[in-house]
């Protein structure tokens, strides 16, 4: 079977819209195009019905009720709303927030902004496997803690946090628990009741839905969570998020969730198989390769590998018919290496050599074999160009060398 190039294996960055999702969305652009808030005519009622249907589809995927789903422009907005909304609403109760260092920037930058307004934020470290330590968490909670925000699955290393256990601790201490579940929803079974989650961020374009739409789960019972809105004007979404609803986007998000609910288990197994196939092929042919983050607690479709002595961007350039991403500084606009890998204790030299593979619904076994071969041949070629590989082969201990970095 002919492989179509280039191959997309960067599904943590975004995913293609599933054809079934696209089909569901299309009528809402120019046939059933009403504003869901138009209460007085059929155009509005039809749009509203579609929105409510989507609420149900999303709620069922996470074991919530439809009334607990708020629509936003995406998970970044959902996370902003959750954290800022709780912070403002519960200011009298306290001003301390706990999160951790490998969170997505949507969480970290929101917390940084709150620190400017006088909130105190504790950024828990992670262990070498990428997971937080429960003792650290317990110790960090004070009578002024109003929110714990820990992601379900990390976008770079795919590592799964012990959400259910964190939920128990949060409940015990009477603190709200927000989970950025962007990379986990639809990939692993997420259950807000069982796992004690009070707020949860969901993204459309990570689960084969469209970009520009997301949702926030906001618990209504045991306990009830109230949020101060961050966008005012019209009072949509129970006053929590004003603005005309993106009906086609919401229909797409709902359909994407429905598909995930049906196919998640089988898809997870299939992707795990492909991931293992990719990993085994690479490890069989190359030495000095290392996996970043726990392999035990990990999304089935993710792997993040450091290829010692080969810089990440040069590797990406060499496999230019494959789309993946790297933790190398050279690939970031700010020339900073991955802060997630740094938090794991991965040395900066190895951080520069890391590649993230995110397998998805549309990847095939043939594609995995092709990618494995391209990676192996490119790494071998670049190691021939690498002074570090040469030194390592000569028995030089690179870590003991004194380097003279270039004058800037």
């Amino acid at each position, binding site marked *: 079977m002919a492989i179509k190039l280039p191959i997309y294996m960067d599904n943590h960055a975004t995913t293609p819209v599933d054809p079934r999702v696209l089909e569901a969305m299309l009528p809402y652009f120019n046939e059933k195009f009403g504003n869901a808030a138009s209460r007085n005519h059929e155009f509005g009622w039809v749009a509203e019905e579609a929105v409510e249907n989507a609420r149900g589809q999303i709620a069922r995927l996470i074991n919530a009720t439809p009334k607990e789903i708020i629509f936003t422009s995406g998970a970044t907005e959902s996370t902003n709303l959750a954290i800022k909304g709780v912070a403002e609403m519960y200011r009298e109760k306290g001003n301390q927030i706990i999160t951790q260092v490998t969170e997505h920037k949507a969480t970290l930058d929101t917390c940084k902004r709150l620190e400017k307004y006088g909130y105190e934020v504790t950024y828990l470290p992670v262990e070498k496997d990428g997971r937080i330590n429960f003792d650290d968490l317990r110790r960090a909670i004070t009578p002024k803690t109003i929110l714990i925000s820990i992601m379900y699955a990390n976008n770079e290393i795919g590592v799964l946090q012990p959400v259910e256990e964190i939920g128990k601790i949060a409940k015990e201490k009477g603190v709200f628990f927000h989970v950025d579940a962007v990379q986990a929803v639809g990939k692993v079974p997420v259950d807000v009741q069982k796992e004690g989650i009070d707020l949860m961020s969901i993204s459309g374009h990570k689960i084969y839905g469209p970009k520009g739409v997301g949702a926030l789960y906001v618990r209504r019972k045991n306990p009830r969570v109230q949020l101060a809105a961050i966008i005012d004007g019209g009072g949509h979404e129970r006053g929590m998020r004003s603005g005309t609803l993106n009906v086609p986007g919401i229909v797409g998000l709902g359909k994407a969730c429905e598909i995930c609910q049906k196919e998640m288990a089988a898809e997870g197994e299939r992707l795990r198989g492909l991931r293992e196939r990719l990993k085994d092929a690479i490890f069989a042919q190359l030495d000095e390769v290392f996996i970043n983050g726990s392999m035990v607690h990990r999304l089935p479709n993710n792997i993040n590998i450091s290829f010692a002595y080969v810089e990440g961007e040069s590797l990406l350039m060499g496999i230019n018919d494959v789309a993946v991403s790297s933790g190398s500084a050279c690939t970031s606009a700010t020339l900073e290496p991955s802060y997630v890998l740094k938090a794991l204790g991965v*040395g900066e030299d190895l951080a520069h050599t890391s590649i993230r593979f995110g397998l998805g619904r549309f990847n095939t076994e043939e594609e995995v074999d092709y990618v494995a071969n391209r990676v192996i041949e490119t790494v071998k070629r670049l190691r021939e160009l690498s*002074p570090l*590989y040469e030194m390592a082969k000569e028995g030089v201990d690179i870590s003991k060398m004194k380097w003279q970095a270039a004058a800037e």
Partner: protein
Amino acid sequence: MAYSEKVVDHYQNPRNVGSLDKNDPNVGTGLVGAPECGDVMKLQMKVNPDTRVIEEAKFKTFGCGSAIASSSLATEWVKGKTVEEALAIKNTEIVRELSLPPVKIHCSVLAEDAIKAALSDWKKKQGEADTQPAQSSGAAH
């Protein structure tokens, strides 16, 4: 960020990859950069002590496509030049030749440093005074 054709060319077909004998009295070795920065260049040149002409040059680089291209280009440019001519090569010339975007200019700076470090090492071996600003070779002994 799309790469310029010349960067891609140097990456696919790097010139003068390899190593010279660092114990050869006529070989200067420059090792610049640091693994933590994601850029390490090793540049070696064999210089004719009588004519002071660079007869051979080889490089190895750990770094992005622009870094590989910059050091590959550097080996191309120094061959056939005298020591003094090679020392006059400016990173800005590399930037222009490879159409490096602002975020990759430091790669060309590193290549210029590598040239200077290699020649500084060569001069030391010849017992010459090193008139360049302190850029001692970080070569492993």
